[in-house]
Protein backbone atom coordinates (compact mmCIF):
# COMPACT_ATOMS: atom_id res chain seq x y z
CA UNK A 1 0.00 0.00 0.00
CA UNK A 2 2.72 2.44 -0.91
CA UNK A 3 0.68 4.45 -3.37
CA UNK A 4 -2.46 6.33 -2.49
CA UNK A 5 -4.14 5.48 -5.75
CA UNK A 6 -4.25 1.80 -4.92
CA UNK A 7 -6.93 2.40 -2.32
CA UNK A 8 -10.31 1.38 -3.53
CA UNK A 9 -11.93 2.86 -0.46
CA UNK A 10 -10.32 5.62 1.52
CA UNK A 11 -11.80 7.84 4.20
CA UNK A 12 -10.25 10.82 5.86
CA UNK A 13 -11.43 12.14 9.22
CA UNK A 14 -14.81 10.55 8.63
CA UNK A 15 -17.47 10.98 11.30
CA UNK A 16 -20.64 8.95 11.12
CA UNK A 17 -23.91 9.22 12.99
CA UNK A 18 -27.27 10.93 12.91
CA UNK A 19 -28.39 14.50 13.12
CA UNK A 20 -31.83 15.30 14.41
CA UNK A 21 -33.37 18.70 14.94
CA UNK A 22 -31.90 19.16 18.38
CA UNK A 23 -28.66 17.24 18.60
CA UNK A 24 -25.98 15.39 16.74
CA UNK A 25 -25.50 11.76 17.65
CA UNK A 26 -21.94 10.79 16.74
CA UNK A 27 -21.48 7.04 16.44
CA UNK A 28 -17.84 7.02 15.39
CA UNK A 29 -15.44 9.85 14.69
CA UNK A 30 -12.16 10.41 12.92
CA UNK A 31 -12.19 7.23 10.86
CA UNK A 32 -9.24 6.97 8.50
CA UNK A 33 -9.77 3.83 6.49
CA UNK A 34 -7.50 2.73 3.66
CA UNK A 35 -8.56 -0.37 1.80
CA UNK A 36 -6.87 -2.04 -1.15
CA UNK A 37 -8.38 -4.11 -3.96
CA UNK A 38 -9.32 -7.78 -3.68
CA UNK A 39 -9.72 -7.95 0.08
CA UNK A 40 -12.35 -9.69 2.14
CA UNK A 41 -13.18 -7.35 4.99
CA UNK A 42 -15.32 -8.44 7.92
CA UNK A 43 -16.94 -5.73 9.99
CA UNK A 44 -17.39 -6.94 13.56
CA UNK A 45 -19.07 -5.38 16.54
CA UNK A 46 -21.85 -5.81 19.03
CA UNK A 47 -25.49 -5.30 18.14
CA UNK A 48 -26.33 -1.61 17.94
CA UNK A 49 -22.71 -0.48 17.82
CA UNK A 50 -23.20 1.24 14.46
CA UNK A 51 -22.08 -1.28 11.84
CA UNK A 52 -25.08 -0.51 9.66
CA UNK A 53 -24.52 3.22 10.08
CA UNK A 54 -20.97 2.83 8.80
CA UNK A 55 -22.12 0.77 5.81
CA UNK A 56 -24.99 3.15 5.09
CA UNK A 57 -22.55 6.07 5.11
CA UNK A 58 -20.04 4.32 2.86
CA UNK A 59 -22.82 3.52 0.39
CA UNK A 60 -24.21 7.09 0.40
CA UNK A 61 -27.53 5.98 1.84
CA UNK A 62 -27.00 8.50 4.62
CA UNK A 63 -24.64 11.49 4.67
CA UNK A 64 -21.40 11.59 6.65
CA UNK A 65 -21.37 14.03 9.58
CA UNK A 66 -17.96 15.27 8.47
CA UNK A 67 -14.89 14.10 6.61
CA UNK A 68 -14.47 12.63 3.16
CA UNK A 69 -14.99 9.25 1.51
CA UNK A 70 -13.17 8.31 -1.69
CA UNK A 71 -14.31 5.41 -3.87
CA UNK A 72 -11.65 4.58 -6.48
CA UNK A 73 -10.05 7.98 -5.81
CA UNK A 74 -13.27 9.85 -6.51
CA UNK A 75 -14.97 11.74 -3.75
CA UNK A 76 -18.26 10.03 -2.94
CA UNK A 77 -20.01 13.41 -2.92
CA UNK A 78 -19.24 13.99 -6.59
CA UNK A 79 -20.42 10.56 -7.76
CA UNK A 80 -23.96 10.45 -9.13
CA UNK A 81 -26.17 7.47 -8.33
CA UNK A 82 -25.54 5.64 -11.60
CA UNK A 83 -21.76 6.10 -11.37
CA UNK A 84 -21.85 4.85 -7.79
CA UNK A 85 -23.95 1.87 -8.88
CA UNK A 86 -21.17 0.96 -11.29
CA UNK A 87 -18.53 0.79 -8.55
CA UNK A 88 -20.48 -0.44 -5.55
CA UNK A 89 -23.21 -3.06 -5.20
CA UNK A 90 -25.21 -4.23 -2.21
CA UNK A 91 -26.61 -7.37 -0.66
CA UNK A 92 -29.12 -6.42 2.02
CA UNK A 93 -30.73 -8.34 4.89
CA UNK A 94 -34.22 -7.03 4.29
CA UNK A 95 -36.91 -9.29 2.88
CA UNK A 96 -37.71 -8.78 -0.78
CA UNK A 97 -41.22 -7.54 -1.50
CA UNK A 98 -43.48 -10.21 -2.96
CA UNK A 99 -43.37 -10.51 -6.71
CA UNK A 100 -43.34 -12.99 -9.55
CA UNK A 101 -39.68 -12.39 -10.44
CA UNK A 102 -37.75 -15.38 -11.69
CA UNK A 103 -34.19 -15.95 -10.53
CA UNK A 104 -32.92 -14.95 -13.95
CA UNK A 105 -34.93 -11.72 -13.95
CA UNK A 106 -33.71 -10.92 -10.44
CA UNK A 107 -30.05 -11.34 -11.36
CA UNK A 108 -30.58 -9.50 -14.65
CA UNK A 109 -31.81 -6.48 -12.67
CA UNK A 110 -28.19 -6.09 -11.59
CA UNK A 111 -27.49 -4.79 -15.10
CA UNK A 112 -29.81 -1.80 -14.62
CA UNK A 113 -27.01 0.80 -14.34
CA UNK A 114 -25.79 -0.27 -17.80
CA UNK A 115 -28.98 -0.94 -19.78
CA UNK A 116 -30.84 1.56 -21.96
CA UNK A 117 -33.93 3.52 -20.90
CA UNK A 118 -36.29 0.59 -21.31
CA UNK A 119 -33.91 -1.97 -19.81
CA UNK A 120 -33.06 -4.11 -22.83
CA UNK A 121 -30.18 -6.55 -22.23
CA UNK A 122 -27.26 -6.35 -24.66
CA UNK A 123 -24.82 -9.15 -25.50
CA UNK A 124 -22.42 -7.76 -22.88
CA UNK A 125 -25.18 -7.74 -20.29
CA UNK A 126 -26.02 -11.37 -21.05
CA UNK A 127 -22.36 -12.28 -20.65
CA UNK A 128 -22.08 -10.65 -17.24
CA UNK A 129 -25.30 -12.31 -16.07
CA UNK A 130 -24.01 -15.64 -17.29
CA UNK A 131 -20.71 -15.12 -15.43
CA UNK A 132 -22.55 -14.18 -12.25
CA UNK A 133 -24.46 -17.47 -12.33
CA UNK A 134 -21.27 -19.38 -13.01
CA UNK A 135 -19.27 -17.75 -10.21
CA UNK A 136 -21.99 -18.42 -7.66
CA UNK A 137 -22.80 -21.89 -8.96
CA UNK A 138 -26.49 -21.11 -9.31
CA UNK A 139 -27.11 -21.84 -13.00
CA UNK A 140 -29.54 -24.64 -12.18
CA UNK A 141 -31.87 -22.15 -10.46
CA UNK A 142 -32.45 -19.69 -13.32
CA UNK A 143 -35.99 -20.78 -14.14
CA UNK A 144 -37.24 -20.90 -10.57
CA UNK A 145 -39.21 -18.09 -8.99
CA UNK A 146 -37.13 -16.41 -6.31
CA UNK A 147 -39.72 -17.17 -3.60
CA UNK A 148 -39.31 -20.89 -4.24
CA UNK A 149 -35.66 -20.79 -3.13
CA UNK A 150 -34.30 -21.81 0.25
CA UNK A 151 -32.64 -19.06 2.28
CA UNK A 152 -29.20 -20.37 1.34
CA UNK A 153 -30.00 -20.43 -2.38
CA UNK A 154 -31.57 -16.99 -2.23
CA UNK A 155 -28.45 -15.56 -0.59
CA UNK A 156 -26.30 -16.91 -3.42
CA UNK A 157 -28.69 -15.50 -6.01
CA UNK A 158 -28.57 -12.09 -4.34
CA UNK A 159 -24.78 -12.26 -4.47
CA UNK A 160 -25.07 -13.20 -8.15
CA UNK A 161 -27.18 -10.08 -8.69
CA UNK A 162 -24.46 -7.97 -7.09
CA UNK A 163 -21.87 -9.68 -9.31
CA UNK A 164 -23.93 -8.98 -12.43
CA UNK A 165 -23.73 -5.32 -11.45
CA UNK A 166 -19.97 -5.70 -12.13
CA UNK A 167 -18.68 -3.45 -9.37
CA UNK A 168 -15.24 -3.39 -7.74
CA UNK A 169 -16.84 -3.27 -4.32
CA UNK A 170 -19.61 -5.47 -2.91
CA UNK A 171 -21.04 -4.62 0.49
CA UNK A 172 -23.10 -7.20 2.37
CA UNK A 173 -25.11 -6.48 5.49
CA UNK A 174 -25.27 -9.60 7.69
CA UNK A 175 -25.71 -11.99 4.76
CA UNK A 176 -25.77 -15.18 6.84
CA UNK A 177 -28.21 -14.11 9.51
CA UNK A 178 -30.94 -16.56 8.43
CA UNK A 179 -28.61 -19.40 7.46
CA UNK A 180 -27.55 -22.67 9.08
CA UNK A 181 -23.87 -23.34 9.67
CA UNK A 182 -23.44 -25.25 6.41
CA UNK A 183 -24.83 -22.44 4.27
CA UNK A 184 -23.05 -19.84 6.36
CA UNK A 185 -19.68 -21.43 5.65
CA UNK A 186 -20.62 -21.91 2.00
CA UNK A 187 -21.50 -18.22 1.70
CA UNK A 188 -18.27 -17.10 3.33
CA UNK A 189 -16.23 -19.46 1.18
CA UNK A 190 -17.92 -17.97 -1.89
CA UNK A 191 -17.10 -14.44 -0.73
CA UNK A 192 -13.48 -15.43 -0.09
CA UNK A 193 -13.28 -16.90 -3.59
CA UNK A 194 -14.72 -13.73 -5.15
CA UNK A 195 -12.16 -11.60 -3.36
CA UNK A 196 -9.22 -13.87 -4.11
CA UNK A 197 -9.94 -15.04 -7.65
CA UNK A 198 -11.94 -12.13 -9.05
CA UNK A 199 -10.31 -9.27 -7.10
CA UNK A 200 -13.56 -8.00 -5.67
CA UNK A 201 -13.33 -5.87 -2.58
CA UNK A 202 -15.91 -7.34 -0.25
CA UNK A 203 -17.09 -5.77 2.98
CA UNK A 204 -19.31 -7.96 5.16
CA UNK A 205 -20.88 -6.97 8.42
CA UNK A 206 -21.36 -10.15 10.40
CA UNK A 207 -21.77 -11.78 13.77
CA UNK A 208 -19.94 -14.92 12.62
CA UNK A 209 -16.85 -13.80 14.54
CA UNK A 210 -14.99 -17.08 14.54
CA UNK A 211 -15.52 -17.62 10.83
CA UNK A 212 -14.40 -14.07 10.14
CA UNK A 213 -11.21 -14.71 12.10
CA UNK A 214 -10.39 -17.63 9.84
CA UNK A 215 -11.33 -16.18 6.47
CA UNK A 216 -11.07 -12.40 6.50
CA UNK A 217 -8.04 -10.60 5.09
CA UNK A 218 -8.86 -7.54 7.13
CA UNK A 219 -11.05 -7.02 10.15
CA UNK A 220 -12.83 -3.82 11.02
CA UNK A 221 -13.61 -3.84 14.73
CA UNK A 222 -16.16 -1.43 16.13
CA UNK A 223 -16.19 -0.93 19.87
CA UNK A 224 -17.89 1.82 21.87
CA UNK A 225 -14.57 3.66 22.27
CA UNK A 226 -12.83 3.18 18.95
CA UNK A 227 -12.61 1.73 15.46
CA UNK A 228 -9.74 -0.56 14.47
CA UNK A 229 -8.89 -1.74 10.99
CA UNK A 230 -6.03 -4.15 10.44
CA UNK A 231 -5.13 -7.62 9.28
CA UNK A 232 -6.37 -10.45 11.47
CA UNK A 233 -2.80 -11.42 12.47
CA UNK A 234 -1.89 -7.92 13.63
CA UNK A 235 -5.07 -7.57 15.63
CA UNK A 236 -4.46 -10.90 17.38
CA UNK A 237 -0.82 -10.02 17.95
CA UNK A 238 -1.69 -6.74 19.61
CA UNK A 239 -4.46 -8.22 21.78
CA UNK A 240 -7.11 -6.05 20.18
CA UNK A 241 -9.83 -8.65 19.95
CA UNK A 242 -10.52 -8.78 23.66
CA UNK A 243 -11.92 -5.27 23.39
CA UNK A 244 -14.65 -6.39 20.98
CA UNK A 245 -17.03 -7.71 23.60
CA UNK A 246 -16.73 -6.05 26.96
CA UNK A 247 -18.16 -8.99 28.80
CA UNK A 248 -17.06 -11.35 31.53
CA UNK A 249 -18.72 -14.24 29.80
CA UNK A 250 -16.71 -14.24 26.59
CA UNK A 251 -13.00 -14.02 26.00
CA UNK A 252 -10.60 -14.36 23.11
CA UNK A 253 -8.43 -17.46 23.11
CA UNK A 254 -5.17 -16.51 21.46
CA UNK A 255 -3.93 -20.07 20.84
CA UNK A 256 -7.18 -21.27 19.31
CA UNK A 257 -7.70 -17.91 17.60
CA UNK A 258 -11.34 -18.17 18.59
CA UNK A 259 -13.77 -16.55 20.97
CA UNK A 260 -14.79 -18.91 23.76
CA UNK A 261 -16.67 -18.89 27.03
CA UNK A 262 -14.56 -17.27 29.76
CA UNK A 263 -12.69 -19.49 32.19
CA UNK A 264 -14.40 -17.60 34.97
CA UNK A 265 -17.82 -18.66 33.71
CA UNK A 266 -19.70 -20.75 36.28
CA UNK A 267 -23.06 -22.14 35.24
Amino acid at each position, binding site marked *: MDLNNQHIIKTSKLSIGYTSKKNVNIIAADLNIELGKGKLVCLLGKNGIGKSTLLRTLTKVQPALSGEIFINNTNLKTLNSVEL*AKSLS*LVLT*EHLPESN*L*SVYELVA*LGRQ*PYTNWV*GNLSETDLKFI*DNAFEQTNTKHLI*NAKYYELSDGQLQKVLIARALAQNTDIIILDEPTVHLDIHHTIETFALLKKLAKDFHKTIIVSTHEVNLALQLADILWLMTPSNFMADTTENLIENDRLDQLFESDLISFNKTLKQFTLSNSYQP
Partner: protein
Amino acid sequence: MVNPTKSYRNTFLILLGALLLIFIVNISLGSVYIPLKQLFLAFVDGEVEKESWKSIALNYRLPKAITAIIVGSGLSISGLLMQTLFRNPLAGPYVLGISSGASLGVAILILGASFFGATAAGFAFSSWGHAIAASLGAFLVLSAVMLAAIKVRNTMSILIIGLMFGSLTASVISVLAYFSSANQLQQYLFWSFGSLGNLSWNEILVLLIIFVIGMTFVIFIIKPLNSLLLGENYAKSMGVNVKRTRNLTLISTSLLTGVITAFSGPIAFIGLAVPHLTKLLFSTSNHKILVPAVAISGAIIMLICDSIAQLPTSEYTLPINAITSLFGAPIIIWLLVRKRKITY
Protein backbone atom coordinates in the same frame (compact mmCIF):
# COMPACT_ATOMS: atom_id res chain seq x y z
CA MET B 1 -26.42 -19.80 -21.94
CA VAL B 2 -29.55 -18.56 -23.65
CA ASN B 3 -31.52 -15.75 -22.18
CA PRO B 4 -34.47 -17.51 -20.55
CA THR B 5 -36.64 -14.41 -20.48
CA LYS B 6 -39.81 -15.91 -21.87
CA SER B 7 -41.32 -14.69 -25.09
CA TYR B 8 -45.00 -13.90 -24.80
CA ARG B 9 -45.73 -13.27 -28.47
CA ASN B 10 -48.43 -15.91 -28.75
CA THR B 11 -50.21 -14.81 -25.60
CA PHE B 12 -50.19 -11.25 -26.89
CA LEU B 13 -51.56 -12.32 -30.28
CA ILE B 14 -54.38 -14.23 -28.57
CA LEU B 15 -55.16 -11.22 -26.37
CA LEU B 16 -55.27 -8.87 -29.35
CA GLY B 17 -57.55 -11.32 -31.19
CA ALA B 18 -59.81 -11.44 -28.14
CA LEU B 19 -59.86 -7.65 -28.01
CA LEU B 20 -60.93 -7.42 -31.65
CA LEU B 21 -63.62 -10.06 -31.15
CA ILE B 22 -65.13 -8.49 -28.04
CA PHE B 23 -64.96 -5.09 -29.72
CA ILE B 24 -67.13 -6.40 -32.57
CA VAL B 25 -69.51 -8.11 -30.15
CA ASN B 26 -69.73 -4.92 -28.12
CA ILE B 27 -70.69 -2.65 -30.99
CA SER B 28 -73.20 -5.16 -32.33
CA LEU B 29 -75.12 -5.11 -29.03
CA GLY B 30 -77.61 -2.45 -28.08
CA SER B 31 -81.27 -1.61 -27.73
CA VAL B 32 -81.63 -1.48 -31.51
CA TYR B 33 -80.70 -4.56 -33.48
CA ILE B 34 -78.37 -3.75 -36.36
CA PRO B 35 -77.11 -6.60 -38.58
CA LEU B 36 -73.31 -6.98 -38.52
CA LYS B 37 -73.04 -6.35 -42.24
CA GLN B 38 -74.92 -3.07 -41.94
CA LEU B 39 -72.67 -2.03 -39.03
CA PHE B 40 -69.62 -2.71 -41.13
CA LEU B 41 -71.07 -0.70 -44.00
CA ALA B 42 -71.73 2.19 -41.64
CA PHE B 43 -68.10 2.30 -40.60
CA VAL B 44 -66.69 2.18 -44.11
CA ASP B 45 -69.09 4.92 -45.16
CA GLY B 46 -71.15 2.57 -47.35
CA GLU B 47 -74.87 2.48 -48.13
CA VAL B 48 -76.80 1.56 -44.98
CA GLU B 49 -80.44 0.43 -45.14
CA LYS B 50 -81.60 2.84 -42.49
CA GLU B 51 -80.05 6.25 -41.85
CA SER B 52 -80.73 5.89 -38.08
CA TRP B 53 -78.54 2.75 -37.96
CA LYS B 54 -75.61 4.70 -39.29
CA SER B 55 -76.11 7.42 -36.74
CA ILE B 56 -76.38 4.93 -33.86
CA ALA B 57 -73.26 3.10 -34.99
CA LEU B 58 -71.11 6.14 -35.55
CA ASN B 59 -72.30 8.52 -32.85
CA TYR B 60 -73.24 6.18 -30.08
CA ARG B 61 -71.79 2.68 -30.24
CA LEU B 62 -68.34 3.42 -31.66
CA PRO B 63 -67.60 6.27 -29.21
CA LYS B 64 -68.82 4.11 -26.33
CA ALA B 65 -66.60 1.18 -27.32
CA ILE B 66 -63.58 3.46 -27.69
CA THR B 67 -64.32 5.02 -24.31
CA ALA B 68 -64.52 1.54 -22.79
CA ILE B 69 -61.10 0.68 -24.19
CA ILE B 70 -59.47 3.85 -22.85
CA VAL B 71 -61.20 3.58 -19.46
CA GLY B 72 -60.34 -0.10 -19.05
CA SER B 73 -56.69 0.33 -20.06
CA GLY B 74 -56.11 3.50 -18.09
CA LEU B 75 -57.63 2.33 -14.82
CA SER B 76 -55.87 -1.04 -15.01
CA ILE B 77 -52.50 0.60 -15.67
CA SER B 78 -53.10 2.95 -12.73
CA GLY B 79 -53.80 -0.08 -10.55
CA LEU B 80 -50.64 -1.84 -11.72
CA LEU B 81 -48.47 1.21 -11.00
CA MET B 82 -49.92 1.62 -7.54
CA GLN B 83 -49.51 -2.03 -6.67
CA THR B 84 -45.80 -1.87 -7.51
CA LEU B 85 -45.18 1.53 -5.94
CA PHE B 86 -47.01 0.80 -2.68
CA ARG B 87 -45.72 -2.80 -2.63
CA ASN B 88 -49.33 -3.63 -1.97
CA PRO B 89 -51.39 -6.20 -3.86
CA LEU B 90 -54.65 -4.55 -2.82
CA ALA B 91 -53.78 -1.08 -4.07
CA GLY B 92 -55.81 0.44 -6.87
CA PRO B 93 -57.29 3.79 -7.86
CA TYR B 94 -60.63 3.07 -6.19
CA VAL B 95 -59.32 1.44 -3.01
CA LEU B 96 -56.78 4.15 -2.28
CA GLY B 97 -59.33 6.92 -2.63
CA ILE B 98 -57.92 8.32 -5.87
CA SER B 99 -61.26 7.99 -7.64
CA SER B 100 -62.88 9.76 -4.70
CA GLY B 101 -60.33 12.54 -5.08
CA ALA B 102 -61.29 12.88 -8.73
CA SER B 103 -64.96 12.92 -7.71
CA LEU B 104 -64.21 15.69 -5.25
CA GLY B 105 -62.61 17.74 -8.01
CA VAL B 106 -65.66 17.34 -10.22
CA ALA B 107 -68.04 17.95 -7.30
CA ILE B 108 -66.32 21.21 -6.39
CA LEU B 109 -66.49 22.27 -10.02
CA ILE B 110 -70.16 21.41 -10.58
CA LEU B 111 -71.58 22.05 -7.12
CA GLY B 112 -69.34 24.96 -6.26
CA ALA B 113 -69.66 26.69 -9.64
CA SER B 114 -72.10 29.26 -8.25
CA PHE B 115 -69.47 30.40 -5.73
CA PHE B 116 -66.96 31.13 -8.41
CA GLY B 117 -69.17 33.27 -10.63
CA ALA B 118 -70.14 33.10 -14.27
CA THR B 119 -66.74 32.40 -15.84
CA ALA B 120 -66.21 29.42 -13.63
CA ALA B 121 -69.71 28.21 -14.38
CA GLY B 122 -68.95 28.23 -18.09
CA PHE B 123 -65.74 26.36 -17.45
CA ALA B 124 -67.54 23.90 -15.21
CA PHE B 125 -69.57 22.49 -18.06
CA SER B 126 -66.70 22.16 -20.50
CA SER B 127 -65.04 18.78 -20.83
CA TRP B 128 -61.59 20.27 -20.21
CA GLY B 129 -62.88 21.75 -16.98
CA HIS B 130 -64.02 18.33 -15.76
CA ALA B 131 -60.79 16.69 -16.82
CA ILE B 132 -58.54 19.22 -15.09
CA ALA B 133 -60.59 19.34 -11.90
CA ALA B 134 -60.72 15.57 -11.64
CA SER B 135 -56.99 15.17 -12.32
CA LEU B 136 -56.17 17.78 -9.68
CA GLY B 137 -58.45 16.07 -7.17
CA ALA B 138 -56.87 12.70 -7.93
CA PHE B 139 -53.40 14.19 -7.65
CA LEU B 140 -54.15 15.79 -4.27
CA VAL B 141 -55.49 12.59 -2.70
CA LEU B 142 -52.76 10.45 -4.23
CA SER B 143 -50.06 12.81 -2.94
CA ALA B 144 -51.59 12.71 0.51
CA VAL B 145 -51.73 8.91 0.50
CA MET B 146 -48.17 8.81 -0.83
CA LEU B 147 -46.91 11.09 1.95
CA ALA B 148 -48.61 8.88 4.47
CA ALA B 149 -47.09 5.81 2.81
CA ILE B 150 -43.57 7.21 3.19
CA LYS B 151 -44.19 7.65 6.93
CA VAL B 152 -46.02 4.39 7.59
CA ARG B 153 -44.57 1.39 5.85
CA ASN B 154 -47.26 -1.01 6.97
CA THR B 155 -49.31 -2.26 4.02
CA MET B 156 -52.54 -2.50 5.95
CA SER B 157 -52.22 1.03 7.35
CA ILE B 158 -51.80 2.46 3.86
CA LEU B 159 -55.02 0.80 2.71
CA ILE B 160 -56.88 2.11 5.75
CA ILE B 161 -55.47 5.60 5.14
CA GLY B 162 -56.71 5.35 1.53
CA LEU B 163 -60.16 4.35 2.77
CA MET B 164 -60.17 7.27 5.22
CA PHE B 165 -59.30 9.72 2.47
CA GLY B 166 -62.14 8.18 0.47
CA SER B 167 -64.67 8.84 3.22
CA LEU B 168 -63.20 12.28 3.90
CA THR B 169 -63.77 13.36 0.33
CA ALA B 170 -67.21 11.74 0.38
CA SER B 171 -68.21 13.83 3.38
CA VAL B 172 -66.91 17.03 1.77
CA ILE B 173 -69.02 16.17 -1.27
CA SER B 174 -72.09 15.66 0.96
CA VAL B 175 -71.60 19.09 2.50
CA LEU B 176 -71.26 20.64 -0.96
CA ALA B 177 -74.34 18.77 -2.12
CA TYR B 178 -76.34 20.03 0.85
CA PHE B 179 -75.80 23.63 -0.20
CA SER B 180 -76.36 23.09 -3.93
CA SER B 181 -79.32 23.73 -6.13
CA ALA B 182 -81.43 20.81 -7.30
CA ASN B 183 -80.22 21.33 -10.83
CA GLN B 184 -76.54 21.14 -9.93
CA LEU B 185 -77.17 18.19 -7.67
CA GLN B 186 -78.88 16.28 -10.43
CA GLN B 187 -76.01 16.98 -12.79
CA TYR B 188 -73.49 15.70 -10.27
CA LEU B 189 -75.55 12.62 -9.40
CA PHE B 190 -75.86 11.56 -13.02
CA TRP B 191 -72.12 11.92 -13.40
CA SER B 192 -71.40 9.87 -10.29
CA PHE B 193 -73.42 6.86 -11.49
CA GLY B 194 -70.70 6.21 -14.00
CA SER B 195 -71.32 5.75 -17.68
CA LEU B 196 -69.31 5.00 -20.77
CA GLY B 197 -71.86 6.41 -23.20
CA ASN B 198 -72.90 9.96 -23.94
CA LEU B 199 -69.41 11.15 -24.83
CA SER B 200 -69.14 13.38 -27.86
CA TRP B 201 -66.26 12.89 -30.26
CA ASN B 202 -64.76 16.10 -28.89
CA GLU B 203 -64.79 14.74 -25.37
CA ILE B 204 -63.26 11.49 -26.55
CA LEU B 205 -60.48 13.51 -28.10
CA VAL B 206 -59.75 15.19 -24.74
CA LEU B 207 -59.85 11.76 -23.04
CA LEU B 208 -57.54 10.31 -25.66
CA ILE B 209 -55.00 13.15 -25.52
CA ILE B 210 -54.60 12.96 -21.74
CA PHE B 211 -54.59 9.14 -21.89
CA VAL B 212 -51.70 9.25 -24.36
CA ILE B 213 -49.78 11.76 -22.21
CA GLY B 214 -50.28 9.58 -19.11
CA MET B 215 -49.22 6.43 -20.93
CA THR B 216 -46.10 8.16 -22.26
CA PHE B 217 -44.99 8.80 -18.69
CA VAL B 218 -45.66 5.14 -17.92
CA ILE B 219 -43.34 3.98 -20.70
CA PHE B 220 -40.51 5.96 -19.14
CA ILE B 221 -40.90 4.37 -15.72
CA ILE B 222 -41.00 0.75 -16.87
CA LYS B 223 -37.31 0.21 -16.09
CA PRO B 224 -37.18 1.85 -12.63
CA LEU B 225 -40.44 0.10 -11.67
CA ASN B 226 -38.76 -3.23 -12.35
CA SER B 227 -35.93 -2.41 -9.96
CA LEU B 228 -38.46 -1.29 -7.35
CA LEU B 229 -39.61 -4.91 -7.30
CA LEU B 230 -36.58 -5.54 -5.08
CA GLY B 231 -37.51 -2.69 -2.74
CA GLU B 232 -36.42 0.94 -2.58
CA ASN B 233 -32.97 0.30 -1.12
CA TYR B 234 -31.94 -2.11 -3.85
CA ALA B 235 -33.42 0.22 -6.47
CA LYS B 236 -31.32 3.10 -5.14
CA SER B 237 -28.20 0.93 -5.10
CA MET B 238 -28.76 0.22 -8.79
CA GLY B 239 -28.74 3.91 -9.61
CA VAL B 240 -32.50 4.44 -9.74
CA ASN B 241 -33.78 7.86 -8.80
CA VAL B 242 -36.60 6.65 -6.56
CA LYS B 243 -38.02 10.09 -5.90
CA ARG B 244 -38.30 10.87 -9.61
CA THR B 245 -39.91 7.49 -10.29
CA ARG B 246 -42.39 8.08 -7.50
CA ASN B 247 -43.28 11.51 -8.85
CA LEU B 248 -43.71 10.29 -12.42
CA THR B 249 -45.91 7.45 -11.19
CA LEU B 250 -47.94 9.96 -9.22
CA ILE B 251 -48.41 12.23 -12.20
CA SER B 252 -49.32 9.50 -14.66
CA THR B 253 -51.74 7.81 -12.27
CA SER B 254 -53.42 11.12 -11.45
CA LEU B 255 -53.77 12.00 -15.13
CA LEU B 256 -55.14 8.59 -16.09
CA THR B 257 -57.49 8.14 -13.15
CA GLY B 258 -58.45 11.81 -13.15
CA VAL B 259 -59.44 12.17 -16.78
CA ILE B 260 -61.18 8.79 -16.87
CA THR B 261 -63.17 9.53 -13.75
CA ALA B 262 -64.05 12.95 -15.13
CA PHE B 263 -65.71 11.47 -18.20
CA SER B 264 -67.03 8.12 -17.04
CA GLY B 265 -67.62 8.65 -13.33
CA PRO B 266 -65.93 6.70 -10.55
CA ILE B 267 -65.58 3.11 -11.76
CA ALA B 268 -64.82 0.43 -9.21
CA PHE B 269 -62.62 -2.67 -9.19
CA ILE B 270 -61.19 -2.59 -12.72
CA GLY B 271 -57.95 -1.02 -11.47
CA LEU B 272 -57.60 -3.62 -8.75
CA ALA B 273 -58.75 -6.81 -10.48
CA VAL B 274 -57.25 -6.53 -13.97
CA PRO B 275 -53.56 -6.39 -12.95
CA HIS B 276 -54.05 -9.54 -10.85
CA LEU B 277 -55.78 -11.42 -13.64
CA THR B 278 -53.00 -10.40 -16.01
CA LYS B 279 -50.25 -11.45 -13.61
CA LEU B 280 -52.00 -14.79 -13.25
CA LEU B 281 -52.10 -15.20 -17.02
CA PHE B 282 -48.54 -14.05 -17.69
CA SER B 283 -46.86 -15.21 -14.49
CA THR B 284 -44.29 -12.44 -14.58
CA SER B 285 -43.55 -9.22 -12.73
CA ASN B 286 -41.58 -7.66 -15.56
CA HIS B 287 -43.27 -4.35 -16.35
CA LYS B 288 -42.05 -4.45 -19.93
CA ILE B 289 -44.48 -7.34 -20.42
CA LEU B 290 -47.05 -6.33 -17.83
CA VAL B 291 -47.70 -2.77 -19.02
CA PRO B 292 -48.92 -3.71 -22.53
CA ALA B 293 -50.57 -6.89 -21.22
CA VAL B 294 -52.50 -5.05 -18.50
CA ALA B 295 -53.53 -2.32 -20.96
CA ILE B 296 -54.98 -4.85 -23.42
CA SER B 297 -56.61 -6.98 -20.70
CA GLY B 298 -58.16 -3.89 -19.15
CA ALA B 299 -59.67 -2.92 -22.48
CA ILE B 300 -61.04 -6.43 -23.00
CA ILE B 301 -62.59 -6.65 -19.55
CA MET B 302 -64.14 -3.19 -19.74
CA LEU B 303 -65.68 -4.10 -23.11
CA ILE B 304 -67.03 -7.33 -21.61
CA CYS B 305 -68.51 -5.43 -18.67
CA ASP B 306 -70.10 -2.94 -21.02
CA SER B 307 -71.48 -5.74 -23.19
CA ILE B 308 -73.04 -7.34 -20.11
CA ALA B 309 -74.56 -3.99 -19.19
CA GLN B 310 -76.11 -3.99 -22.67
CA LEU B 311 -77.22 -7.62 -22.68
CA PRO B 312 -80.81 -7.14 -21.67
CA THR B 313 -81.59 -5.83 -25.14
CA SER B 314 -84.14 -3.50 -23.72
CA GLU B 315 -83.98 0.25 -23.73
CA TYR B 316 -82.23 0.25 -20.39
CA THR B 317 -78.54 -0.09 -19.78
CA LEU B 318 -77.39 -1.35 -16.41
CA PRO B 319 -75.08 1.03 -14.54
CA ILE B 320 -71.51 0.11 -15.45
CA ASN B 321 -70.32 0.41 -11.87
CA ALA B 322 -72.68 -2.35 -10.75
CA ILE B 323 -71.25 -4.69 -13.38
CA THR B 324 -67.59 -4.00 -12.61
CA SER B 325 -68.19 -4.60 -8.91
CA LEU B 326 -70.21 -7.74 -9.59
CA PHE B 327 -67.33 -8.99 -11.67
CA GLY B 328 -64.40 -7.62 -9.66
CA ALA B 329 -65.26 -8.44 -6.09
CA PRO B 330 -65.71 -12.21 -6.57
CA ILE B 331 -62.48 -12.39 -8.56
CA ILE B 332 -60.49 -10.82 -5.75
CA ILE B 333 -62.12 -13.12 -3.19
CA TRP B 334 -61.46 -16.13 -5.39
CA LEU B 335 -57.83 -15.12 -5.88
CA LEU B 336 -57.27 -14.66 -2.17
CA VAL B 337 -58.89 -17.97 -1.28
CA ARG B 338 -57.29 -19.99 -4.04
CA LYS B 339 -53.75 -18.68 -3.91
CA ARG B 340 -53.81 -17.57 -0.27
CA LYS B 341 -51.17 -15.09 -1.21
CA ILE B 342 -51.42 -12.71 -4.14
CA THR B 343 -48.30 -11.21 -5.53
CA TYR B 344 -47.92 -7.88 -7.20
